[in-house]
């Protein structure tokens, strides 16, 4: 769960450290700082999907997500000269993406109805990525797409700062320390904000009737797929 954002797509539970880097990221970073667009372009290949997904969850719809992700990447490239080596590149990049998304939302405050009702169709053919315990039945696929859309909408209804921490922690699996660095806030603030954000998410999901009350929990449909509740 604690895999960080440094790698492309990791199987659930794989630590980033387990991955041998097949090319020299540091080298690309240093060339990018010299204004080498090609090097930055290559560097970006590692992150662009995550950047796009972060923007998607932040702003709610695909069109804005593509625009915002691209804008963030270009801004990052322009700001590369100011990137300090001691910072982690991924968190630095994330910070820019989050800021771009928040700016975008602020600029749209006059029209607060952000289109969050876009259905999440199962078009990214990797739905079976999760390890499913039981034999999957065909109806589950539909169920799953529907549930995903509803959860996506619930996240969209959260306050922006709550949304940001939930996305980074629970969807993208960043460590607390990384989130603190991305948002430029203290670790303690991350903890309390995450707590409030998760509570708010719980309320939203409850309202959307996506949570099973514990009384009927045993034997009902397993909403915690892949993630064991007991630690």
């Amino acid at each position: 769960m604690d895999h960080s954002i440094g790698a492309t797509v990791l199987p659930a539970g794989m630590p980033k450290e387990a991955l041998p880097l097949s090319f020299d990221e540091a080298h690309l970073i240093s060339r990018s700082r010299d204004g080498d667009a090609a090097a930055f372009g290559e560097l970006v290949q590692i992150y662009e999907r995550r950047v796009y997904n972060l923007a998607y969850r932040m702003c709610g719809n695909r069109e804005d997500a593509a625009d915002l992700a691209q804008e963030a990447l270009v801004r990052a490239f322009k700001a590369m000269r100011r990137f300090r080596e001691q910072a982690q590149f991924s968190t630095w990049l994330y910070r820019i993406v989050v800021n771009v998304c928040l700016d975008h939302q602020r600029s749209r405050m006059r029209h607060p109805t952000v289109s969050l009702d876009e259905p999440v169709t199962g078009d990214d053919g990797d739905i079976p990525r999760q390890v499913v315990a039981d034999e999957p039945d065909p109806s589950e696929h539909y169920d799953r797409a529907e549930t995903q859309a509803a959860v996506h909408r619930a996240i969209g209804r959260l306050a922006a700062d709550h949304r940001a921490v939930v996305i980074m922690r629970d969807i993208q699996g960043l460590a607390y320390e990384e989130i603190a660095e991305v948002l430029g806030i203290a670790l303690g603030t991350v903890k309390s904000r995450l707590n409030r954000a998760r509570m708010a998410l719980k309320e939203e999901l409850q309202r959307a009737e996506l949570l099973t009350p514990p009384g009927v929990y045993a034997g009902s449909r397993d909403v915690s797929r892949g993630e064991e509740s007991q630690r």
Partner: protein
Amino acid sequence: MSCDRLKDLLSLYIDDKLPAEQRRQVDEHLAKCPDCAAELAMLRQAVALAGSLDDLELPEGFHVAVQAKLAEAAATANAAPAAEAVSSAAPGPIPIAQGLLIRTRTALRRPLWRGALATAAAVVLLFAVVSNALPGWNGNVWQLLSYRDTQLREPGVLGGGTAPDAGTDTETKAPGINQGTDAAGKGDGTGVSEGGDRLVGILTDTSVGIGNMIIRTGTLTVQVEKFTEAERQVNTIVEDAGGYIEQSSASLDDTIKSGWFRIRVPQDEFTAVIARFEELGTVRQKEMGSEDVSAAIVDTEARIANLRRQELRLGELLGQAKTLDEILRVENELNRVRYQIESYEGQLKYLQNRVAMATIALSLKEPGDPADPPVPGADIWRQIWKAFVNTWRGIGRFAVGLVVFVASVAPVALLIGAAWWAFARYRGRRPSSGS
């Protein structure tokens, strides 16, 4: 511990981030407070639901758009510093790109040139970036363009890097540069004519015609005097052009023969073949189309390169996996990645095939086809005569049809008549036999 205080800690409790002492207190409270336990269960479900959201794939064209925007940004920011970085005193044979920059450097002092150079640099960088996104042919471009630290960008250092001689291969199959860029380079570079031409020269030599990834299609209907004769000619034309007939159909039984062909010919022969088809007879209908698939191809190739990298990493991970569960998970992921690679490669092959071979839908008809619209201004008496004859023919056809109908009904009528006659006789005899 109060319930309110506990609720502040649940999130950390779920992530197992509480110090041992606090954790124990939470456990104790949960054991005796069903409300808080329920709260925890719900929160866990919420967190798990958020975690079950799948990542979206990047939208089509995203990667290319990013690279283009980066190149643009680099061009505006980099033009001046890049020129300053080159030393002006370089005697003897100098690399082309370096020579170009030295020559334009003196010009840089006048502000007018800066815009022109920025545009030229944008062109170079765009190509450099796009070329980099295409694995397999970035070596040569970079040898010419990275004037600052060629030694750093050795092939193999980067993921997509290949041997420098990969460039020779691309030279042969890329006759020219993207026309749009070519025009832009020349149009904006009038001031730096020498440098500008040089620049275009470099790119013409090394770039794959990325703007040439165009699917061409044509639809043609030709009216011919003799279908069979025209069909033979079509075969010859297609063979001459090095193409083939993908599918064809002909109706030869009718008095008016016609047929259609779906023909694939090499891209370069497309125009010539269309022209030869037009000579077969009178062109009745013609439609030409083209679709630029460069972006789709670059995108797909980038995706494949990315997935190959993942595949490699997963392969290495598989070697390190210890437990059965780990192995299964990695293999699951590996299968998924390989499946995606295959499907993208299929897409790529399809696109490349469509680009290499243009498609022509040719339809041949002999004159007099009833589907042909009447020629305007045609002889009115002929039309009246035709209508008159047609009506007579219709009456004739009706008469024949009637005779045929009667003939076909006759056996049934005979049978029914016989049955009725037999029945009538039976009825007629019965009262007499009963009395």
